């Protein structure tokens, strides 16, 4: 906005007019610390944005690492539906936003304009990604995803999301903790995420499944409910549910001798007719052989 001018006659030398205006308006140079402080603020905000980007990336890694893409067609009707549920949109968006904020702040520092968009973007992305990977390795990714993610709109933390996929016994999907197992794992008791106990029939299980049961802790069971109302579930496949990048959640093994007593069960043997109807049986069998 232009301020009113010509307070002094135009025939006066220009420099004199400028100095007269400075005197008339009692102007003084703004203190140096204001500029230094402003510069520090922009650098700090830039660094903070990159650090927040690192947290977003660690949460993104946690989400990607803890989604089992091999079971996409078990839990979802299509890969696309699975992608929509499992892709870390929130963290990709957050990372992009923080990187943009980082760029905008660095650009406003004293010499920020000298750096090209590419230089700042590559620097910020590399820093965020390296820091984010380090944070993920320390287990902070899970913490961010589970705590911050819980408050974000339109987002459900991946573990909560996955638990909901495996709380569908009517669809043959059951997830929860192995509470106890009979010797030989002909059956075991599982507590689902709602706290309900299930008697799981393990007669169709093969060696890799039994290993998962023996290991205890969290498992995912693919099978067939015996009826719509009972809490008896016929298991066809059991998959250990391990968390990656989240310290302290790996369960201690169950004090069972399941494997030894069931070693006669081959992993290659076909399952009963009950299991052959589950979808996608052939794919699960293939995964079973290569190790789920």
């Amino acid at each position, binding site marked *: 906005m232009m301020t009113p001018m010509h307070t002094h006659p135009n025939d006066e030398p220009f420099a004199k007019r*400028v100095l007269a205006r400075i005197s008339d308006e009692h102007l003084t140079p703004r203190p140096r610390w204001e500029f230094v402080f402003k510069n520090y603020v922009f650098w700090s905000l830039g660094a903070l944005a990159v650090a927040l980007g690192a947290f977003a990336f660690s949460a993104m890694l946690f989400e990607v690492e803890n989604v089992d893409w091999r079971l996409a067609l078990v839990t979802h009707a299509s890969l696309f539906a699975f992608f929509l549920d499992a892709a870390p949109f929130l963290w990709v968006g957050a990372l992009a936003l923080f990187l943009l904020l980082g760029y905008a702040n660095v650009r406003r520092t004293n010499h920020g*304009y000298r750096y090209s968009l590419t230089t700042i973007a590559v620097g910020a992305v590399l820093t965020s990604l390296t820091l984010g990977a380090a944070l993920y390795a320390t287990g902070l990714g899970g913490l961010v995803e589970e705590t911050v993610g819980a408050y974000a709109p339109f987002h459900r933390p991946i573990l909560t999301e996955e638990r909901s996929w495996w709380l569908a016994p009517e669809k043959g999907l059951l997830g929860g903790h192995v509470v106890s197992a009979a010797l030989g794992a002909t059956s075991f008791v599982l507590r689902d995420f709602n706290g309900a106990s299930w008697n799981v029939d393990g007669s169709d299980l093969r060696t890799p499944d039994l290993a998962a049961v023996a290991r205890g802790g969290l498992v995912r069971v693919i099978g067939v409910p015996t009826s719509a109302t009972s809490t008896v579930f016929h298991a066809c496949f059991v998959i250990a549910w391990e968390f990656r990048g989240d310290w302290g959640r790996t369960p201690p093994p169950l004090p069972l001798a399941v494997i030894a007593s069931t070693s006669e069960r081959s992993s290659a043997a076909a399952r009963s007719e009950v299991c052959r109807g589950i979808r996608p049986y052939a794919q699960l069998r293939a995964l079973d052989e290569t190790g789920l």
Partner: protein
Amino acid sequence: MPLDMTDEEIVRRTLADKEAFAPLIERYEAKLLRYLDRLGVLVREDREDILQNAFVKAYKNLNSFDPTLAFSSWMYRIVHNEAMSFFRAKRARPQVILSEEGEALLTELRDDESDASAAAELRLSQEELGRAFAKLEPRYRDALILRFFEERSYAEMSDILEVPVGTVSTLLYRAKRALREALPERTRS
């Protein structure tokens, strides 16, 4: 005050005594008024108002002056920004009238022509060049003015326009191409 004092020395003195600012104003007054003229501020009073504002702003922000860049670049930046605010406030497109100083730009355009006959064709009147200039986007015009009329280096232009040096190169390349396209048909190869 000794005439051989550097800009930076005068800035230091001005922080202690505002009267010391006068030689710096005198040193840049004519140059910056000419720059404003080239930017398209055609009324002398407007040019003086803008320049006065720019010097007052420079004085108030003297402590933010970074001695690692030339004072002239800093001053050009302030004047440039003030001129842009002026055009925005007036909602006016700058009216550029080029004087005979466009020769450096024409030489540059001629040098860019690989075809000798096309280069020879690039002899136009100042009026034609001015008309082509007026058709350019402001950022292209600004870049060409700083480079070929104010004879600023790429590094200085980077400090004045507050863009990376690489962007200055791109701007100039695109500006020259846009100018060539804006020239009358007969002058184009």
